[in-house]
């Protein structure tokens, strides 16, 4: 039988996670872990981190929006600070699963599960998020850009817990857009997700960041497409060029939800439409 720990403090939780004999895994909203019980053996031990105050709440820390890892998607989707300073994260949160899932699932859990189809992950990449992770050895910050090592593999130690997610505050002139394509609007694992942010300098694009999910073993930044946009004047020709670069920047697969060809086509189409509809 699985052993359960419900620590009251982060320090206690880290001690449990740091004990190799316990082999404990963190539990927050349970929307991944509980589904996993259908196909995997139950973990030897779980640590309930969902109510640790250190993992809760959203606050401003200078130029950084500091989001607790156990903040739920429902909370993200309505939080005034998130809506103002990282609107793309709120947009994504409102499209994860459905209401029942958003009430339980957490940002930290989405990161920790590390599915290539995790809807929040391209948002974190595009925004340049930094994770604050803790263990009994101390805490450190990990850039989202260096987080994903491979399919469902993170650059975190087994005993490290994601505590906070730190996002640069949106600059006043920055536009953020999230797009998701799935079989239906709710409760469908995404076929393609795109997170896009940009600003304007006179008529030219600048500070362009573009990331995609469900189109590679990990969420990916589409760097070539970003560079084509940087300093360019938006046009239909630019949209077509950037779409081609986006398609070249992904490595999707055929699976039960979609095909590689469809995903590759749609990621380009989403990027093209973002430039034609949102930028121009």
């Amino acid at each position: 039988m699985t052993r359960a720990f419900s620590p009251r403090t982060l320090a206690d939780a880290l001690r449990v996670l740091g004990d190799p004999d316990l082999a404990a895994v963190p539990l927050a909203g349970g929307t991944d872990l509980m589904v996993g019980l259908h196909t995997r053996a139950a973990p030897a031990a779980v640590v309930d981190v969902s109510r640790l105050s250190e993992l809760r709440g959203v606050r401003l820390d200078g130029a950084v929006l500091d989001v607790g890892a156990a903040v739920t998607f429902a909370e993200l989707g309505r939080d005034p600070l998130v809506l103002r300073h990282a609107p793309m994260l709120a947009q994504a949160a409102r499209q994860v699963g459905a209401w029942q899932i958003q009430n339980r699932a957490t940002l930290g859990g989405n990161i920790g599960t590390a599915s290539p189809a995790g809807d929040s992950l391209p948002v974190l990449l595009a925004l340049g998020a930094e994770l604050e992770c803790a263990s009994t050895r101390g805490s450190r910050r990990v850039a989202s850009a260096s987080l994903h090592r491979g399919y469902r593999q993170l650059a975190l130690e087994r005993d490290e817990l994601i505590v906070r997610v730190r996002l640069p505050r949106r600059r006043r002139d920055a536009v953020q857009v999230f797009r998701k394509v799935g079989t239906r609007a709710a409760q469908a694992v995404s076929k393609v997700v795109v997170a896009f942010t940009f600003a304007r300098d006179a008529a030219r694009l600048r500070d362009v960041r573009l990331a995609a999910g469900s189109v590679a073993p990990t969420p990916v930044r589409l760097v070539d497409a970003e560079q084509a946009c940087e300093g360019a004047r938006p046009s239909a020709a630019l949209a077509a060029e950037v779409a081609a670069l986006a398609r070249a920047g992904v490595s999707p697969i055929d699976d039960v939800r979609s095909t590689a060809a469809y995903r590759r086509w749609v990621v380009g189409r989403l990027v093209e439409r973002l430039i034609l509809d949102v930028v121009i």
Partner: protein
Amino acid sequence: MDADITLTVNGATVRFVGDPLTRLLDVLRGQLGLTGAKEGCGEGECGACTVWLDDEPVCACLVPMLQLEGRVVRTVEGLASARLTALQQAFVSEGAVQCGACTPGMLMSAEALLVREPRPTEAAIRTHLAGNVCRCTGYQAIVRAVQRAAVKPTRAPAARPRVGAKPTVKAPRANSAPAKKRRPRRSPR
């Protein structure tokens, strides 16, 4: 090691002792005999097991008992008292039930929406019911039932109260929002 958890279900104190990862759904249906919440998919996708956890709709198939110490759960059995709620009556009146497997979950999501938004738009109704799958009705009658149960929108003068109709006040419940008026019958199109 057994978990020993005390929680509140439909106003009653309940104690659970057992595997900490036991699903709330199994305790409701097996230990407590509350079979309103249904297991459809067991993966949080169909919404047939929707219950309220501290007033928020959740899938009972994804909630492990270990997280429920001191928490408050309400199931569809805890919605009605002696008589049907306005929402339940509206489901009957609109024919929003066919096989009925999704209905308890639909009611819990829709009632939670009405508590928060007494006059939801159709878009809001559809968004908040998107996690509840129905394979029979095609959803139209369900959406109409929620609209019927909602307070009459002040900006929609088309639906006038019938002469002599009195607003129906719902029976107060332990953790419900202020009582709502039942929406008068809609005028024919």
